[in-house]
């Protein structure tokens, strides 16, 4: 049913991160980071709050720091699609988003698993397409580091095209409509998929029909020009790195322009920036809580490790509460072993900038890292202040929603769902029910790209 509210709405997704220093694991209220019960609790809380999607990352190698397993953050995460298949059994509406890379997953196998998840969940599956290509990750796989970084999007587009071909390999009505049919499947409507992906070729017969949503929804998170063009050509949703209001508006405008240029309706691609929320009854309490969160996310050891990653060498002799290192980085750019959020940063340039910043403001190592770290505080405020701010995002069409990263597991969504969501609903800027049963319906997306002509 359509609502009568004239206001734009925003939605929430939740990104159960596992790794990264976002997740505070040192406190008594932080539970198991890997037990299934923690995932169940977050997914069911999100569904109670009418979140459109539950989102998992992909781990293909334990992160390393200076040649050893990085031991300061949560370590260990489940296989995304297998975990989402289990969660599909105990949720009914929420979308289930699996991050899966196009280099170290086999395309037909990937397509089949995503389609399996889509059918198991009744049309709630999504694929967050990432293009991890480094040989260090590839050391866990037969094909190893076969792909040049420059070719990652070209290869990714071939993989996406192959995956879609598998999803489309059964015509509608292949499966018998009743038990009296001549056969279970009308095999004349099943098409063999043959693709040359450059580095290898595949040939496959599809094993499944399309789900209630046609295809799993495609997410994409690349932020480079190439990444944005890829997203606006191929994806339905962008998991963006632009949560701040002005930046988000500019990003949304850029995406609308690129979407039109790709020959699609300008609202065809939805934007969900990642975001952290620190909420309390009053703004002052929330500010106090945000300081606590930052202190626990950036521990002294994490602060030093953060700089070590940029400097490329051990800085264990430096005081986290003292000034920045006086030595220069020993690397030009950072490596890939700490995950995509940390790779390819220009070390010398950052060191120069940060020294200037810390000298100008008298910041210690830990204070600087808290300031410049990957998550810069997020949205902080009293519940009603934050509800008003989010209403501005909705009114301005700056985002379609936020992909929330809880900093506590498994209780990190409780205050958002119990306290913030009702205020957003009162303001008419948040859904009051799920629209239909599929993720595509929750997000207000059109049919799958390859199926539009047929529709």
């Amino acid at each position, binding site marked *: 049913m359509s609502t009568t509210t004239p206001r734009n709405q925003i939605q929430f997704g939740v990104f159960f991160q596992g790794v990264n220093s976002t997740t505070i*694991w*040192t406190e008594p209220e932080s539970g198991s980071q*890997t*037990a299934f019960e923690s995932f169940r609790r977050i997914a069911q809380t999100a569904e109670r709050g009418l979140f459109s999607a539950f989102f998992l990352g992909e*781990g293909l*190698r*334990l992160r390393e720091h200076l040649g*050893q*397993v990085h*031991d*300061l*953050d949560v*370590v*260990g*995460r*489940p*296989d995304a*699609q*297998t*975990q989402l*298949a*289990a*969660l*599909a*059994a*105990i949720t009914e509406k929420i979308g289930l988003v699996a991050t899966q890379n196009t280099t170290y*997953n*086999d395309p037909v*196998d990937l397509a*089949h*698993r995503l389609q*399996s998840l889509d*059918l*198991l*969940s*009744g049309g709630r599956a999504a694929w967050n397409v990432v293009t991890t290509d480094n040989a260090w990750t590839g*050391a*866990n*796989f*037969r094909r190893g580091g076969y792909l040049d970084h420059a070719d990652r999007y070209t290869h990714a587009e071939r993989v996406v095209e192959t995956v879609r071909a598998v999803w489309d390999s059964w015509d509608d009505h292949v*499966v*018998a*409509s*009743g*038990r*009296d049919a001549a*056969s*279970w*499947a009308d095999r004349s409507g*099943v098409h063999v998929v043959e693709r040359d*992906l450059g580095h290898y*070729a*595949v*040939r*496959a017969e*599809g*094993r*499944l*029909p399309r789900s209630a949503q046609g295809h799993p929804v495609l997410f994409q998170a690349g932020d480079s020009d190439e990444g944005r063009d890829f997203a606006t050509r191929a994806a339905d949703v962008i998991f963006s790195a632009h949560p701040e209001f002005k930046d988000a508006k500019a990003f949304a405008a850029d995406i609308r322009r690129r979407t039109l240029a790709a020959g699609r309706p300008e609202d065809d691609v939805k934007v969900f920036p990642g975001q952290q929320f620190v909420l309390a009854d009053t703004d002052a309490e929330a500010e106090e809580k945000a300081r606590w969160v930052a202190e626990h996310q950036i521990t*002294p050891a994490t602060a030093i490790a953060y700089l070590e990653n940029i400097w490329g060498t051990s800085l264990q002799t430096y005081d986290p509460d003292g000034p920045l290192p006086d030595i220069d980085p020993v690397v030009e750019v950072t490596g890939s072993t700490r995950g995509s959020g940390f790779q390819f940063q220009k070390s010398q340039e950052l060191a120069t900038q940060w020294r200037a910043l810390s000298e100008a403001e008298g910041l210690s190592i830990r204070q600087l890292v808290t300031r410049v770290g990957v998550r810069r505080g997020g949205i902080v405020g009293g519940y009603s202040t934050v509800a008003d701010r989010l209403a501005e995002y909705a009114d301005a069409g700056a985002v379609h929603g936020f992909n929330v990263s809880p900093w506590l597991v498994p209780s990190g969504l409780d205050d958002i769902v119990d306290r913030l969501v009702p205020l957003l609903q009162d303001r008419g800027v948040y859904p009051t029910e799920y629209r239909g049963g599929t993720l595509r319906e929750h997000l207000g997306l059109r049919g799958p790209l390859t199926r539009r002509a047929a529709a």
Partner: protein
Amino acid sequence: MTTAPFAIAIELDGDGAHPAAWRAVDHAPADLLSGKRIAATVRAAERAGFTAVTFDDAAVPPGTSAGSGVAGRIDAVQRAAFAAPLTSAIGLVPVAPAVYTEPFHVSTQLATADLASDGRVGWIADTDPDPRSAAVYGRAPVDAAEAVATATDAIEVVRQLWDSWEDDAVIRDTTTWRYVDRDRLHRVTAESPRFSVAGPSIIPPPPQGQLPVFAPLAGGLPAGTDVALVTSSAQATRRVATEAGAAQVWLELEVALDRAGVPAARRVADLDAHEPWAPGTVGRYVGDAAGLVDLLTDLAGQVDGVRLHPAVLDEDLDEIGRAVLPALREAGLFRSPRPGDRLRDVLGLPAAVNRHTAARTATLEEVTA
């Protein structure tokens, strides 16, 4: 033979082993490929008290290219994972191909399902060299001997990945801010010309430590298999399996039972009128429940377990649960798993000992001896 209680598993693939089974069930054909259907069948199997359910799979469609049987199938590991939070006692044992797949993915997928089920997942390592499967993954096809050799390497790598975290690896030490103890995480040391796997695993150890690994004896048993699936209970077959290293031998058996006053032979004949149920290598029992009780009683003296392939899943699963398993339980030949049981324990396999923990403990003993 071990001293473990006799195991009785049931295969849940499709609508049953008979190619026309889909005509005999109450749901529309397309509803087979849904979560709702999987939930209904695993719950029915758990209520009946089976030791475990198995989920068949392959990289190629089920059925035959000539159009026989069901042609669609949801990924088996995902079916097992989906079943995990809906059940609490029954074992969940999917097929995952071992020849053309990436061992790293297979390892983490199965470990994830084992965590979701709190230790009730096993793995049927499929050794089929089917060249059509090779093409699905874009790899060069191999012959049967190379397929078994590849599966042997894959099982070893998967087992090393499951062992790559010692149980006490997560320390959450708030004085040093270390979440894990690096010294309790280990790389994979297996050298195989067939794979590259560096390790450690990305996921903490599965609750069972090592999942029970099943493999068909036909074509050759890969090393590292716990349970050999055989198609003959003859002593010679059992000897081949145990000499190849299997701790247990389970017999595959197709089953059709009398139901609601209709003799089993009649039920099968009615379905055969649509499509014949061609006999394969697996033996078949068609008859009344009492006869199956006698047969299983007899088999319990020869093999460690059976895997039943019901002609029509809904009908035969129900009959076995109603008229066969209770009789075997009463006779003390069979015990159903209880909530919270782990599959290794239910099967009577020895507790898995982490190889790195064992090695360190042994070294410590040497030092202190």
